[in-house]
C-alpha cells in the first residue's frame, strides 16, 4: 500500500517517461561533446581514419601539440640530438619534429580566465547594486532608464565595433585586459540589471527594514540579508555573463592581438602542417569547455536551492 505518495507527485509512469526522454536527449547532446573529447585523445592518424575509430589507443599528442610549437627536421638531424629528456619530447620526435618552444595557448587561456571572470564579477556586482536601487528607491524616470538600459541590447554589439575600435585606440584600451573587461561588462550589464531586478523585486523589503531596525545601515543590510537571498538570481546572472564573455569572438578578434587575446580567436589558428591537427583542436576545445562547465556546476546548487521566501507571511 502506497500511502506516502502525495497527490501532487507524478505517477511512476510519467516519471519513467520523463526519465526516458531526458536520457535520450542527454545522449544526443553528449555525442558531439564526447566525440570532441575522444578526438583530443587520439593521435593524428586515428583522428582522421575512416571508418572512424570508436576504440583507440589513447594518446596525449593533441595536448602536446596544443601547448608547444614544433618544427619538422630531417632524420639525420634528429639522430644527432642527445636522447629526449621526457615523454613529450619523445612523442614529438617520433613525428620527426622538435619542440621549439611553448605555444601561445596557455597565455590566451589565462587571458580568457582573467577577462571572463573579471567581467562576470564586475557585471554581477554593478548589476546587483543598480538592480537594488531600481527595485527599492524612487529613481526619477525609472521606467525610461530601465528601457534605455535594455535598449543597449537591441542591436548586435558588433554593430558598434568601429566606433569602439577607434575609441579604444585613442584611450589606449585596445589589446588590454582592462579594456576587454570593461567592454564585456558593458555588454552584460543590461542583462544583469534586468535579471537581478526581477529577483530583487521578489525579496520582500521587510528583510532590509528588519535589519535596519536591528542596527544595520542600508548598505550593511544589503550585503547581510539581500545578497544572500538573491543568490539564485546572482548565480543565474553570473552564468549568463560568464558564457557570453567566455565565448565572445568578434570583439576579441577586432580588439586584441598579443597581450590580451582570448582563447576563441586563438583556437582556429591551431592548424598543423599538411592538414588540420584535429587532436590539438579537440584538446583546445575540450580545455576551453572546462571552466564554464565547472563554473556552472559549482553555481548549480544555488540555482536548484530555489527561492526561500517562506518566512514572510503574505
Amino acid at each position, binding site marked *: 500500500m502506497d500511502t506516502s505518495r502525495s497527490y501532487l507527485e507524478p505517477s511512476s509512469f510519467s516519471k519513467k517517461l520523463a526519465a526516458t526522454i531526458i536520457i535520450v536527449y542527454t545522449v544526443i547532446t553528449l555525442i558531439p561533446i564526447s566525440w570532441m573529447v575522444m578526438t583530443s585523445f587520439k593521435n593524428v592518424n586515428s583522428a582522421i581514419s575512416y571508418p572512424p575509430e570508436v576504440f583507440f589507443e589513447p594518446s596525449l599528442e593533441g595536448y602536446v601539440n596544443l601547448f608547444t610549437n614544433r618544427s619538422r627536421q630531417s632524420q639525420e638531424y634528429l639522430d644527432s640530438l642527445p636522447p629526449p629528456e621526457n615523454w613529450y619530447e619523445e612523442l614529438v620526435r617520433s613525428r620527426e619534429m622538435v619542440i621549439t618552444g611553448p605555444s601561445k595557448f596557455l597565455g590566451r587561456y589565462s587571458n580568457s580566465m582573467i577577462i571572463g571572470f573579471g567581467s562576470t564579477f564586475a557585471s554581477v556586482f554593478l548589476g546587483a547594486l543598480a538592480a537594488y536601487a531600481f527595485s527599492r528607491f524612487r529613481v526619477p524616470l525609472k521606467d525610461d532608464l530601465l528601457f534605455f538600459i535594455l535598449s543597449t541590447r537591441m542591436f548586435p554589439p558588433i554593430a558598434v565595433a568601429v566606433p569602439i575600435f577607434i575609441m579604444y585606440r585613442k584611450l589606449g584600451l585596445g589589446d588590454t585586459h582592462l579594456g576587454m573587461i570593461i567592454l564585456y561588462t558593458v555588454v552584460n550589464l543590461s542583462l544583469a540589471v534586468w535579471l537581478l531586478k526581477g529577483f530583487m523585486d521578489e525579496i520582500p523589503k*521587510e528583510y532590509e527594514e528588519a535589519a535596519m531596525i536591528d542596527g544595520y545601515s542600508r548598505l550593511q543590510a544589503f550585503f547581510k*540579508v539581500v545578497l544572500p537571498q538573491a543568490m539564485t538570481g546572482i548565480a543565474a546572472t553570473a552564468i549568463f555573463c560568464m558564457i557570453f564573455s567566455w565565448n565572445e569572438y568578434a570583439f576579441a578578434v577586432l580588439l586584441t592581438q598579443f597581450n590580451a587575446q582570448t582563447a576563441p580567436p586563438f583556437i582556429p589558428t591551431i592548424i598543423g602542417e599538411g592538414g588540420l591537427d584535429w587532436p590539438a583542436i579537440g584538446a583546445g576545445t575540450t580545455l576551453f569547455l572546462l571552466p564554464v562547465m565547472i563554473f556552472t556546476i559549482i553555481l548549480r546548487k544555488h540555482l536548484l536551492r530555489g527561492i526561500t521566501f517562506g518566512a514572510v*507571511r503574505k
Partner: protein
Amino acid sequence: MAKIELKNLSKTYNKKIEALHDINFTIEDGQFFVLLGPSGAGKTTTLRCIAGLEKIDNGSILFNDESVTEDQPASRDVCFVFQQYSLYPHYSVYENLAFPLRSPMRKLPEEEIKTKVESIASMLKISNKLNNKATQLSGGEMQRVAIGRALVREPNLYLMDEPLSSLDAKLRESLRVELKNIQTNLNSTILYVTHDQAEATTLADKIGVLKEGHLVQIGTPEEIYENPNSIYVSQRLGSPKINILPGKLFGMDDVPTFGIRPENITIGTGNYSAKIISIENLGSETVVALNFKDQEILVSIQGNYKSSINETINFDMNNEKVLRFDQKGNRIYER
C-alpha cells in the same frame, strides 16, 4: 526606555493617499500604549513612521524630548515586530535571534549573545528549535522568533504590529501574560497594534483609536469602553458588540442615534417586548438576539439562559448606560 511624543505627524503615500493626518500623542516612559482601528486606519503606518522606515511629511517625533525625526532607523534604537513577521530565511533561529546583538551598533561578545538568546528562547518555548532554519518553522513558531528578536534587546521603544495574531488561543493567552510581565518588570515602553479585544483591554495602559488616519480618541481602556466620544469608538471594544439604534424607536425623539452595550439590557421584565431570534450559549454568558420593531438587539446575560426561539419576551435598558450620539455619530453629552 523612553518617553515618546508625536507632534502634528502627517504622512501621505505617493502624494495622494493620506494615511495619517495630524497625529498627536504621548507615550509615557514605561507605558503600554495600544492602537486600535480597522484595517487601513493607519496603524502600521504610525509604527513605521516612528521606526524611521517612512519619511514623514509634517510634524516631529520626540524620544525623551529630543527630536529623532531625521534619524536613521538604526540610530533610533527601537524594536519592531512586523505584522508580516520577517525572519531572515537564510539564517537559523539562533542566528535570527543573535542578529540584532551582532549589529555594528552593539557588537556584544559571543558568550553574552549566547546567554541572552538562550534565555529568550526558553521563555518563548522555542529552545528546541534554535538550530532550525527560519523557514522550517510553523507560523506560530515564526511569530515567536520574531517577538524574541525584539525582546533580546532593551531599546527605547518596542513597536509591535499584531504580534500574537497567528498563535492559537492558549499560546496567545500565555504570551500575553508573559508580555505584560516583561513590560512591568523592565518598565518598557510599548506601542502595540491589535484587533483583539482581550489583548487591548488587558494589556493597555492607554488606548488610541485611529479612524482613517485621524486619532479620534485617547484614553484608558475603561474610558474608551465606558465613555466613547463617537459611535465609531464605541464599536471598537466590547463583545458582543454594542447595539447602535435609532432614538425614535424608544421614544427619544431628540436623539438621532444611541448606543447600549448588550450587558446593560435586562430580559424578563420591562416596558418593551420583542421576539427572540437566536440564543447563543457561550458558557459563562449567553447572547440573546432580539427582534424589536425590525431592529436586531443583542443582549448578554450572565450564565445560562433558558428560553426558545420566536418566544416573545419583555426587556429593559439601563438608562444610565445609554450613550447618545448626534447625526454625525458624535457623542451628545448630558445636558
